[in-house]
C-alpha cells in the first residue's frame, strides 16, 4: 500500500501540473510532493527496518530496507533540488528564454523523473527495474535539453545515445541472468523476481553469470558514470538546469548503482566474491584515475562538479568491491552524503551562474567577499565533498577504506587515496580562484535571497549531522547492508 502511495504522490502531482497553466504555486506543489515522498520514505523505513519487506501488485513492487533507504535518498535530495525550481523557472521566464509552457513541461518532467526513480528502487522484479532506469534516461533527456541551446542539445544527444547503448547492454545482461535462472530452477517458476533470483543464486550457471555481470556492470555502469563509459556525464550535468543537475548527479547516478548492488548480491552467490570484486575494483580505480586527471585541467565549475561525481562513483564502486556489511553500510551512507553535498553545490553553482552569468572558473572572483552567503555555501559544500569532517563523507570514506584494507584491497585503497589527494589539490586551487580575493572598489556586498540560502544551508547541516550522529540511520543502514551481503 505504502509503495503504491509513494509512486502515486509524484505521479498525481505531475498530472496536476500538466492540467494547470503555470503558476508559482504549481512549482511549490511540486516541492511539497517531494516532501511527501521523504515522509513516506521514513514511514516505509520504520516498517521494513526489522526485516519485513512489503510488496504490492503480486510482487511487482517490493520494498525492503535497501529500497526504503534509497527512497529516503530520493526524497531528501529531491526536496532540496525542487526548492530551487521556482527560482530557476522565474529567471528563465523573466529573461525571455522560457515561456509558461516551458515551465509546465519542466514541472511535469521533474515529477515523472522522480516517479521513475522511485519505481526503479521499489521494483521487486529486475526487469521492471530495468524498464524504470531506461525511462529515467528518456525523461531526463528533455530536462538536459530544456534550455534548447546548442550545447544543451548536443549534451542531450550524447546522453541519450550513450546511455541507451549502455542500458541495452544491461538488458542483455538481465536476459542472461534470466536464462541462467530458467536452467537453475529446472524451468519451473523461473522469474526475474529479485527474491527468487536470490534464492536460486547458488545454482546459477557460473559461466553465463560471469558474462551477465560483465554486461550489467558495463551497462548500468554507463548510467552510474563509471569510467570508461562516463563521457556523457560532464556534458549532461553541466548543461542541465541546476536543479536537474542536482537531481541527476545527486540521485540518478546512485539509483543506477543501486541496480548494481542488487545484481552483485546475486552474482556473489553464483560466482563467489572474487570475480565481482575484481570487476568493481577495476571500474572503480579507472574512474578515480580518470576523474583525477581531468579535474586538474578544468576551467568550468559545473564540469568540475560533474567530474567530481565520477570520482565519488569510483569510491562507492571500490567500497562495494570490499563488500563487507560495514563497507556496504558506508557505501550507502556515502550515497546519501554525496547526494546532499553535490546537490547543494550544483544548486549553488546554478545561483552563481544566474548572478555572474558565466560557468567559467576564471570569470568568477572573490565570491566570499562579494557574496558572503553564496560563497560560504559553495565553500562549505566543497569542504563536504572533499571528505573533510564534520561532514558524513569523511565517516563513510574512512569506513570504506578500512573495509577495503580488511579484505586485502589495501593496494586499491592506497591508489584511491593518491587520486583523492590529487583531486583535493585540484579542487582547492579551482575553489580558491572562485572564492578568495578582495571586492572591487565601491562594489556593494550582494545579498543572496533566503529562498536560496535556507534550503542549501539545511542540506549542508543535514550532511554534517549525518557525519556527527549516525544514529537516526544506523539501524536502517545495517539492515539495508544485510539485504545485499550474505
Amino acid at each position, binding site marked *: 500500500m505504502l509503495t503504491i502511495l509513494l509512486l502515486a504522490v509524484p505521479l498525481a502531482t505531475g498530472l496536476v501540473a500538466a492540467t494547470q497553466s503555470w503558476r508559482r504555486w504549481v512549482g511549490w506543489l511540486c516541492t511539497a510532493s517531494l516532501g511527501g515522498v521523504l515522509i513516506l520514505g521514513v514511514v516505509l523505513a520504520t516498517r521494513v527496518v526489522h526485516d519485513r519487506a512489503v510488496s504490492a501488485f503480486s510482487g*511487482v513492487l517490493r520494498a525492503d530496507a535497501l529500497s526504503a533507504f534509497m527512497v529516503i535518498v530520493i526524497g531528501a535530495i529531491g526536496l532540496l533540488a525542487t526548492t530551487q525550481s521556482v527560482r530557476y523557472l522565474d529567471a528563465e521566464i523573466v529573461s525571455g528564454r522560457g515561456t509558461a509552457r516551458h515551465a509546465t513541461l519542466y514541472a511535469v518532467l521533474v515529477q515523472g523523473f522522480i516517479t521513475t526513480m522511485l519505481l526503479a528502487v521499489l521494483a521487486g*522484479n529486475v*526487469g*521492471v527495474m*530495468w*524498464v524504470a532506469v*531506461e*525511462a529515467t*534516461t*528518456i525523461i531526463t*533527456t*528533455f530536462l538536459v*535539453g530544456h534550455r*534548447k541551446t*546548442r*550545447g544543451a*542539445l*548536443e*549534451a*542531450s*544527444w*550524447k546522453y*541519450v*545515445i550513450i546511455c*541507451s*547503448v549502455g542500458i*541495452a547492454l544491461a*538488458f*542483455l545482461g*538481465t*536476459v*542472461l541472468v*534470466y*536464462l*541462467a535462472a*530458467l*536452467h537453475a530452477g529446472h524451468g519451473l517458476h523461473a*522469474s*526475474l523476481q529479485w527474491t527468487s533470483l536470490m534464492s536460486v543464486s547458488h545454482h546459477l*550457471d557460473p*559461466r*553465463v553469470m*560471469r*558474462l551477465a555481470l560483465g554486461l550489467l556492470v558495463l551497462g548500468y555502469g554507463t548510467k552510474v558514470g563509471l569510467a570508461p563509459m562516463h563521457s556523457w556525464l*560532464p*556534458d549532461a550535468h*553541466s*548543461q542541465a538546469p541546476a536543479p536537474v543537475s542536482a537531481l541527476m548527479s545527486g540521485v540518478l547516478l546512485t539509483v543506477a548503482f543501486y541496480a548494481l548492488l542488487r545484481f552483485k548480491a546475486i552474482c556473489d552467490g553464483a560466482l563467489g566474491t572474487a570475480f565481482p570484486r575484481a570487476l568493481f575494483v577495476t571500474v572503480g580505480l579507472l574512474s578515480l584515475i580518470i576523474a583525477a586527471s*581531468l579535474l586538474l*585541467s*578544468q576551467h568550468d565549475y559545473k*564540469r568540475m562538479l560533474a567530474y567530481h561525481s565520477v570520482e565519488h562513483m569510483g569510491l562507492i564502486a571500490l567500497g562495494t568491491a570490499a563488500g563487507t556489511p560495514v563497507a556496504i553500510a558506508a557505501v550507502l551512507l556515502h550515497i546519501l552524503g554525496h547526494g546532499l553535498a553535490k546537490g547543494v553545490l550544483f544548486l549553488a553553482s546554478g545561483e552563481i551562474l544566474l548572478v555572474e552569468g558565466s560557468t567559467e572558473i576564471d570569470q568568477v572572483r572573490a565570491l566570499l567577499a562579494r557574496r558572503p552567503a553564496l560563497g560560504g555555501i559553495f565553500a562549505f559544500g566543497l569542504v563536504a565533498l572533499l571528505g573533510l569532517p564534520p561532514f558524513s563523507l569523511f565517516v563513510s570514506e574512512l569506513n570504506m577504506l578500512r573495509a577495503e584494507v580488511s579484505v586485502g584491497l589495501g593496494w586499491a585503497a592506497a591508489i584511491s587515496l593518491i587520486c583523492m589527494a590529487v583531486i583535493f589539490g585540484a579542487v582547492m586551487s579551482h575553489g580558491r580562484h572562485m572564492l578568495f580575493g578582495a571586492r572591487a572598489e565601491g562594489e556593494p556586498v550582494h545579498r543572496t535571497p533566503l529562498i536560496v540560502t535556507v534550503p542549501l544551508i539545511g542540506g549542508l547541516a543535514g550532511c554534517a549531522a549525518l557525519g556527527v550522529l549516525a544514529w537516526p540511520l544506523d539501524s536502517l543502514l545495517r539492515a539495508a547492508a544485510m539485504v545485499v551481503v550474505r
Partner: protein
Amino acid sequence: MNNATYSNLLELAAGLVILCAFVTLWRRSLSAIVRALSVQGVALGLVALVLGLHRRDVVLITVGCLVIASKGAVIPTLLKRVLANDSLIRETSPLVNVPASLVGAGALTFLAYGATRPVVALVPTSAGRLIPLGLATLLIGFFSMVIRRKAASQIVGLLLVDNGIALVAFLATAGVPLLVELGASLDVLLVVVVLRVLAVQLWSKFAVLDLDQLRELHD
C-alpha cells in the same frame, strides 16, 4: 509444424536478421538502410512467431506480432521522417570504407561465436545454436555507431544493437516475461522518438546533421 520445418524457418528468420545488419553496412543511402532495418524488424518478429507457434505459446505469438508492427513499420516510418529533409544525402565520409567495414563485421561475427559459447552450451536446442547471430548483430550495431558520422546512422546503429539483444532474448529464453518485454519495447520506441525530436531540433536550429559538427562541449 514438424521439427525440421521449425528449425529451417527459425534459421531462415535469424539469418535474415544478420543479413540485414550486413546490408546496413553495405549500403550508403540512408533510405536503403532504413528499408533494411524494417526487413530486419519483420524477420525478428518472425523469429518470435515461429518460436511461439512451435511452443504453442500465445504470449510469444502476440509479442511476435507486436514486434513486426513496431520494428517493421512504426520505427522505420519515424526514421523516414527524420530523413525527409535529406533523403538524398548519403553517408559521404564514414571513417572506414565499405569493403573494410564488411570484413570487420565478418570478424565481429566470429567474435560473437566465441563469446557466446557458455550461453550456447546452456541451451542445446536448434534455437540456442543461433544465439551468436544475435550477439553478432549487436556488435555490428556498435561498429556502425563508431564508424558512421550522420546523426541518423547513429540511430540505426542503436536499433541494430537493440534488435540483436531482442534476438538473443527470443532464442535463449523464448522471451523475457511479458511485462518486461512490453516495457522494453515501449522504451525503445520512445528513445527513437526522443532522438528524432533532437535530430530535428539540431537540424532546424543549428543546421547540424553531422556528428562531427557537435564540438561545442569538450574539456
